[in-house]
Structures are given as C-alpha cells and as structure tokens.
C-alpha cells in the first residue's frame, strides 16, 4: 500500500541529511546536523576537572545542556537532557578520565519533527570533533506509525502531530569487520542488533513496535554509512582550542 506523504517521500525514505564539523571556534568540538528542515547545533567542551555532587567520581561524567530555540527551559527540555545524557554515557569510554566532566551543549536551530534523534546525532558528531574517546557511534532515528499501520521513517512535525504513536530509536554504529566472525558478539548475539535508547510516545501494539525496530535498524545502516563518509579525519587547523 502506498502512503502519500506531504513532501512526496515513501514510507522508507529519510530527509536529506547534512552534517558539518568544526563550526565554532571556542568550543573544543562542534557539529551541526540537519535532517530536512530540522537543524541542531551541538558543542562539546572537553574534560573539565571535577564532577557534580551526585555523580560517581570514579568515572567520567557527561553533562548535557539543552537550549531551545525560544522560550524558557522547562520540563520537556530537562527530559531531553536526561535522554541525551544517558545515550551518550553508553557510548563514551567512561573509565579513561575519572572525576572529570565533559559538557555537551545542544542548541535547537529549527524544529521540523524528529528533533531528539537529530540532537543525538549532532552530539555524537560533536564528540567525534572534540576527540573524546568513544566505544562506537550512535545513530538515532524516529519512526512513526501512520493510521494505516504503516511505519513512516523520519517524520516531519506535521506528520508527528497527526500520527497516533512514534518512537525515537538509537542504534549503535559499530566497526565494520570483513570477516563475519569478527563482528562483536555479546553472549552469542551480534551486537549490531543492540538498541541503545528507545523512547516512545502514544500507544502501539507490540507487533507495530517490533516493525518499527526493524525498519529503524535498516535505516540506521544507511545513516551509519553516511556518518562514515562525512566524518573523515580532518587536520586540526591553526590554533589549539584549549587557549
């Protein structure tokens, strides 16, 4: 069954992706990520001494600050901060710099649907730009359930508002290995099948959710390929950021 989306995409098409690194001068790492009209800017300040009061000083700590486009910071922003922080905690190597805090600042430039996944992608790219040691990257995607039961990928804001349920999913982007046996396995199951984060809104049946997962995973493979192409090693230009 064919779904007619407003911008003419099929159910499985993502919006055009764009990613650029090293945009800001003072921040240690910065990246901007846009999916269609949704655009998010993320900046990272590398490990600073000390952790916050409730954090474990034996590990590195990640602090996320979410800045909305206009308006006061409220509960939704705090929730986003918490989700991004937990996602990033699972991909950073926390044992390398104990008792330090790495700050990630996310600034929403434009919101046209699928905002949280865009922010997580931007934060990952910014961490790469800052040179923070990571276990692997994460790719985030949003899947929503249309009325007909079809799973639509990467919805716009209008689509998100009309849909009855949607899910934000974050998958790991692992290193490729030529030998199939070389891919990481945890307890016999290949780690590519892992899910880092899943946030849903609205009611959906279990089958629908599993279909979302499957579509999301396939799409994340494409996004991982995009990430690998667009985050190449760049020579650091002139001045050092620490000054």
């Amino acid at each position, binding site marked *: 069954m064919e779904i*007619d989306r407003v911008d003419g995409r099929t159910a499985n098409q993502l919006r*055009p992706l*764009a990613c650029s690194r090293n945009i800001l001068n003072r921040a240690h790492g910065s990246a*901007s990520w846009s999916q269609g009209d949704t655009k998010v800017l993320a900046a990272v300040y590398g490990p600073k001494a*000390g952790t916050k009061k409730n954090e474990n000083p034996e590990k590195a700590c990640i602090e996320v600050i979410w800045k909305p486009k206009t308006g006061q910071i409220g509960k939704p922003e705090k929730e986003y901060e918490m989700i991004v922080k937990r996602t990033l905690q699972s991909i950073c190597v926390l044992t390398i710099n104990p008792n330090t805090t790495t700050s990630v600042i996310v*600034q929403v430039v434009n919101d046209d649907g699928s905002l949280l996944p865009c922010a997580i992608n931007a934060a990952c790219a910014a961490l790469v730009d800052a040179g923070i040691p990571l276990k692997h990257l994460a790719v985030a995607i949003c899947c929503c359930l249309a009325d007909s039961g079809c799973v639509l990928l990467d919805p716009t804001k209008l689509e998100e508002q009309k849909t009855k349920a949607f899910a934000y999913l974050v998958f790991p982007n692992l290193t490729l290995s030529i030998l199939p046996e070389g891919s990481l396995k945890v307890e016999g199951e290949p780690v590519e099948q892992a899910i880092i984060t899943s946030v849903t809104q609205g009611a959906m049946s279990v089958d629908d959710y599993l279909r979302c997962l499957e579509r999301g995973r396939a799409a994340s493979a494409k996004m991982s390929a995009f990430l690998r192409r667009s985050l190449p090693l760049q020579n650091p230009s002139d001045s050092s950021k620490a000054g």
Partner: protein
Amino acid sequence: MEPRLANTWRLTVNEKKFIETALQSDLRIDGRRPFEYRKISIKFGREDGSTEVQLGQTHVMGFVTAQLVQPYKDRPNEGTLSIFTEFSPMADPSFEPGRPGEAAVELGRVIDRGLRESRAVDMESLCVISGKSVWSVRVDLHILDNGGNLIDGANIAALAALMTFRRPECSLGGEDGQEVIVHPPEVREPLPLIIHHLPIAVTFAFFSNETSVVIDPTHYEEAVMGGRMTATLNANNDICAIQKAGGEGVLQSVIMQCLRIAGQRAHDITTKIKNAVESYNTERALRKIKRHSNSVSLDVCDADVDVVSERSKLIPGKSIADQSMDIEGETKSSKQGQTSRIDGDAKNFIGGPSSWDPYAGGVNLDSLKASLASRGTSTPSRKEKYSRGENMSCEADPVEPPEDNSLASSPIEAAKTPLGTNGEKTLKDAVKSKNKRKKKASSAGGS
C-alpha cells in the same frame, strides 16, 4: 553550581604584554588596523525572523517571534518589544547555564536601549484593539561563539531578525467586532514590522596606554583592555545611546574621535544589513510565486543553474521571466556544496570551514554548468519534494509529467532519475553526492 576553576581562561603575562606593545605601533594581533572592523556575514534561516550573524569569530543567532497580549496599562496603544539574550555555554568555557551574569544583562540592556528609546521599531502599528490586544514582539539572541565584541554582533543579529520578521495579519471580527482573528500565513500574507531606522552599536576598547583605542575588540583584546565604550548610532548620525561603564578614564578628544569613526562604521554596517535583507526578501518573494506544473523550476534556494537554463529553453511562456529572475536570485545568494554535504538552502546555516561557495571565488558560470551537467535532473526532483513540504511555494504536481523530464534530460549526458519515481536506485547513490535521499535497499518487510 559555582564556576569551576578549570573553566576560567586566563591570558598569560607574555601574551598581554605582546598585545599592548603591538598596539603602541598600531598593530593588532589579527592583522587589522586599529579602526578596522572584522568581516560581517549575515545569513537567514528558513523561517522569517531568524538570522545567524558572524562577526569574525563571533557567532550570534537571533530569532523573533510575536504573540498577542494585553498591553501595559499606561500604554494602551502600543505593542511591546522585549529582548532576551542567552549566553549559551557553548560560546565560552566560562559561561555557565542558569542565571545570566552581568555581561549578559548589560548586553541585553544596551541593545534594548538602542532599539526602544530611539523608537526604531514602530510600536503603535502593533496595536490591534486599543487597551485589549496588542502584538508583543520577542527577540531571542543566542550567543554561540564568543570571539569578542558580543554587543555589536548581537545588535546586528537583532536588527536583521527584526527586519526580516513577518507577523501574521489579523482582522477584527466576531459579533461585536471585538474578536481578533489571526490569519495563517497561507491565507493572508504576513506583514513586516515597521522599522524607522537602524541603530547600530559600535564598540571601542581602551588600553592603559592613553592613546590606544581599537574598534571591534577580539576576545584576546577584551581580556587586556582597560575600558570599553559602546556607541549606538544610526546612519543619519543620530546618537541613540552611549555606554561607557567605568574602566579607564579617557580624554574628551579621544571620545569625539571615536564618535566620528563610529558614524562612518554605522553607515557601512547599515548598508550591509540592508543589502542582506534585500536579497533575502527577493528570494522570499520568488519562493512564493506559485508555479504551474509545466514550469517545473526549482526553489530559488539552490543553485542548479544549468538545469534551470535547460528548462528555460524548453518551456516557453511566462515561466521564462520567472526563471531568469530565478537565476539572478540564485547567482546572488546561493551556495553550492560539492563535498559530501547537502545544500539545502541558500539561507541555511552550513558551517564555515567546510562550505564551498563557488561565487566567492568568481567561478565561471560556464564551467559550473559543465560540472553540474553530470548531476542531472535528480537534484530538481529532490528540491521539488523538498519545497513541497513548505506550504507556500511551488504548486507542482506530486508526480511530475514525465515528458518534461525526458526533454530536459536528453541534453544532459549522464541520465539520472526521472522525476516522480521514488523507489529507484540510481547512479547518484553510488556517487558521493551531497543530497542523499536514502532508500531502503531491501524492502524486506514489504510495504
């Protein structure tokens, strides 16, 4: 939480002495002359009233929004203007989230004074029903990168955002004529704000050596300076505000000289802002022109100059006029990304170092066409779909008439996707292209 020691950035004694000594010979560390401004670049976002301004290394974003509120009791006929500044922690390691520090408050107040007291924005035109309902305009300024001289940068961002902001048109209705009906932008064209003049802030920094004055200090110079003065003037040489809060004492003659120079700079900056806003308005107008299905030209936003010119050969009639305007609009203000990045909008925020602007280097249009010929018509298909997402522009059919496309693609060597077919895999997927419509390789689930 209290600022951590690791956050403060201190200049070493050697660096300070170097800057001061160089200034005695009228040399600045970034190579400028003492009264030279840094390069200003003003870009606009997708929505009306959103801008990004770069003043050298300083990045500021401005957003303008408006809503209907009750007016103040003592001013029932006037709308309100409020300025919110956010010193984002990404701008500087010493900016902490939470309550604004004194620098943030001072910046907000200086910009506010320049706009409000000088009556730059017309408040009375924002009144809808006297005493009951007026528009309240809110300007949010986000400082993204502190490269010094935040006041000037933020001021330019606020002005550019206010000039490009459009508020919805509203009319009175209801039984007693007292209800305000706000018309959405699709129904009635939103209106710009009435701005009488542009108050430009120009900042000077004074150093302990009495005659050293520089304009537009960088953050290194700000760490060394002894005092600062901000003069807000407009292009008519009217002084809207002067702010010199403490710091070094300065001779009167120096102040007068600064004001004279500020007048000239304000004039230059006003012209720059006006030009940027002009080109944005032209693009916006072109975007709004409804196009019919056979004149499938693109959004102005993207430079596919060769495809547009192909089409203008093939499609006669009134669309030619549109398209020639199209080309002009594009050559003026579009960017082209040839690297592995998308080129969504001329007005988008593609970051500095990796964007490639062919027009900056004076690229020959013909060579551009030749290099773009291989891109083919796939880009218009994407832009078509892209633009359809916006309610206002191109009224093109969901499935483009194939004959249009086949005519257009024949002159182009490498044939690409025909328009309107979403499911095909094409050569462009293999090419490391900037616009990537991701398609599912295997529709395993079947749809």
